[in-house]
Structure formats: C-alpha cells, structure tokens
C-alpha cells in the first residue's frame, strides 16, 4: 500500500500558499492541528446550505435531514474506530471529553446515571471519593492530566503516576505497586504528542481491569494516524479531536463501552439529555444522548464524517507507513546534526510521527523563529506536556510532526533549517 502525496496535497489548498519571505509553506505542525481537505469543507458547507436545522429538535423536513446527517456522522465515526454508533459521544474537543469522564466519575458520588441518587455496586465502582486513586503517566498532555488533578482536589482523591524513561517512554516497572485496589481510573495516552512513544495500552488496560479500575486512553494523537479498533485497545473509554484528523475545529469524540457509558452519570446538562424535567429534579436519557446537551454541532459532525471518509479512502495503513518513513528520515537527519538531541525513541518502533528536539545553545523559540522565517511551521515550547519536559531535563523543545501530506523534501528542509539556526546563533 502506498500513498500518492502529490495527489493528496492537491486536496489541501492551504499547502500551496507561501509563508514568510515568500517561501513555500512547510507545515510540520499537524500534531497541533491538521489541515483540511476540500472534501471536509464542502461537506460542512453543503450541510449549512441545504439541511441546516436543529438536530433532534424538531419534526419538520429540515430538522429530519439535519438529524439524519448528524446521526449518520455518528455512525460514520463509529465505523472508523470499530465501535457501535451508540457508543459515540460528540464533545467539544478531546479536552472536554477528558473532563467529561473526570467530572462524571466525581458526580457518581451524588448522582445515579439516569439521575436521582446513586445506587448499586456499579455506581460504587465508578464513584471517586476520598482515599481513591487516579493513575496517569508523566508523559501526558495537560488535557489528560490537569482534569484528573482537579478531580482529585474536588473529591479528596490522590493522583499517582508512572514516571517517564530517559527515552521518553512510560516506565511501567512500578506497575505492581501503582495499580492497587484504591485505583479507580488509569488514564494513559495512546501516543505521546512530544516523544511519539506509544505505550502498551492494552497491557495497562488489563492491569487496570484486574484491579477493578476504569481504563481511559487519550487517543488524540493515536486515532488520526493509525487504524484503531477501540476494542483492541482494551480501553473502557477513549477520546480524540476532530481537528487533528482533518476534520473541523469545535468537535471531539468520546468513545465508551456501552456498559461503562450506561453507568456514568451526566456531566453537562440542559436540553436533549433529559427524559423528564420537573422543577424538583430531572431524569436522563441513555447514552449517547445523556452526554450531548444543547443543540449539537451538526455541521462539524458532518465535516468530521467527511474526514473519516477521506482518511479511509487514502488508507490508514498507508498513512501510518508514510509517516513512519518520514519519521525515520527525520530521526536519521536530526541525530546526525551535532548538538541536536531528540527527546523520544530513536527508532520508529512503537513510535508515532512527533519528533521533538533541542539544539544546544539555541533556545527552541529561536529555532522555531529561524524555521518560520524559512516557511517551516513547527511548534515550540512544552507542547502542553510540561511535566514530561521537566522529567527529561529540558525546559522546552521544538517539535516537528508529520501527516499524510508531508514529504521527504520537507523533512530535509527541516534539517537544513536547523543547521541554519545553528549558524545564525553561532552554535553547533
């Protein structure tokens, strides 16, 4: 299986634009957000121009069409990750999905899944309270860390974590001591947005389950780049963002095993999530409706479905292989430059296409500035993974991240740009 990059690039008009100094744009920041193919923009616009109405909020023709489009998008996303449509909850983004879980397990202490008071062993198993523990890793993006810290603050629970190895992988050696009967949730990234490391989520999920804990996977960097079958991850809950997988901003996805979603109380409430509302109290619908309050982001869901179509048409395996080759080239090129330190694994084994690095004597901001001046868009800073940077002994880094539209020449341009930065700042 192989990928026709030139054909792909033709679908992304922004890639043809010029960046600073008239240089062709070299977009190596898909880890932050991906560019959008025309098919996605067309799908969204077509929805607005022909079927726009409030999905699930009317009985007229347009609202029927909007509901069909929205639910069709749910089914499409479900198929994309090997799930049932009823297991797909549309959120605002990956971050909101993580918060949904963290708040919901906190709410389970005072609310049953359908409203009213919590009851039964399922509720007890979920609810997080004083003495309970949440387990994360030191590699996490802030989106899969801070919500858990805040949950612990609210619930009087304790946050623990797997440390990171010098290679930028999760250090699982202490797993026996870390996963205990006090552990309520184990939340781990499917792929680090800094080191590219892909932790063995199935093994971690199995350990979580053996202790009776929920296994949560941050799929924000995993789902856009690999063919993912959620059941094979072993996770109970997995989330990701549309905008990192060619889809629109403003929408994300939470997948959950049916029994788990059914046991979780609501998070954001309002219209569309309710069964019966009285001033004295309300009851709630089954999932996924229970978790989708308010008029839904139907146009964005339709755009995300079109992104799934696009990715499947190119082929996730072809995309993964294309990225692997680019990553390999980048690892080789960058490690060959004296003074450059790559922050993740140096081979492409169980490793995705985020390549973060430091340059001796040149601050990441300054590296990024020189690259930007050459038209090369990378990310600089801690990439919302500050504890990971601290653990690796660096304050910040520069990150190049690849996607289906990137080319080998762009990787070479990156390496050349780094050398230019070194020269400019008299380093290396």
């Amino acid at each position, binding site marked *: 299986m192989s990928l026709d990059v030139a054909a792909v690039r033709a679908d992304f008009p922004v890639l043809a634009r010029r960046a600073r100094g008239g240089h062709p744009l070299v977009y190596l920041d898909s880890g932050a957000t991906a560019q959008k193919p025309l098919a996605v923009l067309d799908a969204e616009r077509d929805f607005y121009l022909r079927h726009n109405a409030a999905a699930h909020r009317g009985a007229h023709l347009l609202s029927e069409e909007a509901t069909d489009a929205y639910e069709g998008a749910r089914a499409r996303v479900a198929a994309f990750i090997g799930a049932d449509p009823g297991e797909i909850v549309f959120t605002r983004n990956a971050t909101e999905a993580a918060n949904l879980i963290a708040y919901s397990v906190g709410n389970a202490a005072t609310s049953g899944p359908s409203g009213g008071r919590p009851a039964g062993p399922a509720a007890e198993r979920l609810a997080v309270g004083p003495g309970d523990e949440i387990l994360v890793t030191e590699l996490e993006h802030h989106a899969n860390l801070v919500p858990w810290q805040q949950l612990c603050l609210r619930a009087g629970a304790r946050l623990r974590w797997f440390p990171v190895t010098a290679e930028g992988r999760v250090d699982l050696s202490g797993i026996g001591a870390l996963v205990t009967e006090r552990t309520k949730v184990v939340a781990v990234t499917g792929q680090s947005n800094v080191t590219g490391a892909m932790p063995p989520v199935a093994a971690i999920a199995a350990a979580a389950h053996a202790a009776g804990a929920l296994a949560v996977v941050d799929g924000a960097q995993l789902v856009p780049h690999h063919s993912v079958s959620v059941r094979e991850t072993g996770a109970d809950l997995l989330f990701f963002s549309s905008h990192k997988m060619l889809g629109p901003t403003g929408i994300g996805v939470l997948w959950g095993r049916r029994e788990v979603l059914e046991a979780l109380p609501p998070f954001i409430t309002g219209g569309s999530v309710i069964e019966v509302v009285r001033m004295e109290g309300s009851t709630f619908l089954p999932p996924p409706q229970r978790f989708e309050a308010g008029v839904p982001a139907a146009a964005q869901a339709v755009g995300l479905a079109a992104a799934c179509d696009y990715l499947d048409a190119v082929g996730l395996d072809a995309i993964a292989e294309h990225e692997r080759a680019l990553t390999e080239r980048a690892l080789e090129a960058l490690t060959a430059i004296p003074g450059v330190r790559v922050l993740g694994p140096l081979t492409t084994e169980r490793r995705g296409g985020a390549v973060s690095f430091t340059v001796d004597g040149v601050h990441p901001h300054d590296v990024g500035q020189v690259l930007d*001046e050459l038209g090369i868009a990378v990310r600089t800073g801690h990439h919302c993974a500050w504890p990971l940077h601290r653990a690796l002994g660096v304050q910040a880094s520069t990150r190049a991240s690849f996607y289906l539209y990137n080319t080998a020449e762009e990787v070479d341009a990156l390496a050349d740009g780094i050398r230019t930065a070194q020269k400019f700042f008299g380093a290396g």
Partner: protein
Amino acid sequence: MELESMYQEVILDHYRHPHHKGLREPFDAQVHHVNPVCGDEVTLRVALKGAGGEPAVADVSYDALGCSISQASVSVLTDVLIGRPVSEAMEIASAFTELMHSRGRAEPDEDVLGDAVAFTGVARYPARVKCALLGWMAWKDATARALAGQDREQG
C-alpha cells in the same frame, strides 16, 4: 532573510553577554514570572533608593532561563532603567510595552527607550512579544511591590 531585522546585533550581544545578570543584595522586592507557553522564567529583584523624596531604581538583578529575546530584553532593561527615578522608569516601561503591542507599526523614540528600540522588529511577531515583555512585566510587578512595601511582609 528577515532574521537580521528581528535579531538586531544589539539583541544578540545582550543575549550572549547579558548585563547585570545574577541575583544581588540588597533588594526591596523579588518576583518570579513564567511564560506559560514555553516555560521561560525570570526571577527578578528590585532595589529602590529614595533620592530627595523621589524613589529611584537603585538596582535590578535577575536570573533568567529563556530564549534570546527574553534574555536580551531583561538585560537591556537593566541598562535602561537602573539609576532612573521610578516615575521615569515606569514611563519607559509603558513606552516599551506599547511598542511591543504595535505590531511593528510604531515609531519608537530612541531618546526614551535607548537600546530597547532594537526590539521594534520583534513586535511584528505576536508570539514573541510575550518573550520580550517577560522581564519588563516582572520589573513592573516587583517595583509595585517594593513601593507598596509588600516585600517586608512576604520576606
């Protein structure tokens, strides 16, 4: 390349050879500021002296971790502000802040800003404005605290 217009020689000089660096005694207030995007940080101390009733900037000392812009900027700051009456220093700091938010469209006044005019080109890069202002924000904060005598309570 446009790089030279951003990284003026003055900036690179200050970056490579920072002035007044290191934390010194005595001081009236110390603050620690962080750029949340990249983790750049500065610890900055201000010592004031009362010259005929009008307080003046006796010393600014600092320790900083960060990019060329943030490092050079705080170094230039010490050159420009040390020795000035606080009111004048505050005006310079305001002029610098304004310059940095001008998107590179302002005509900086070299008489007021001294070497700090070198940062005019940085103002064209909004993402770097925070770098250039890190030390200046810290200085304003520390000076306000020193004036309020807050440092005494906070130790």
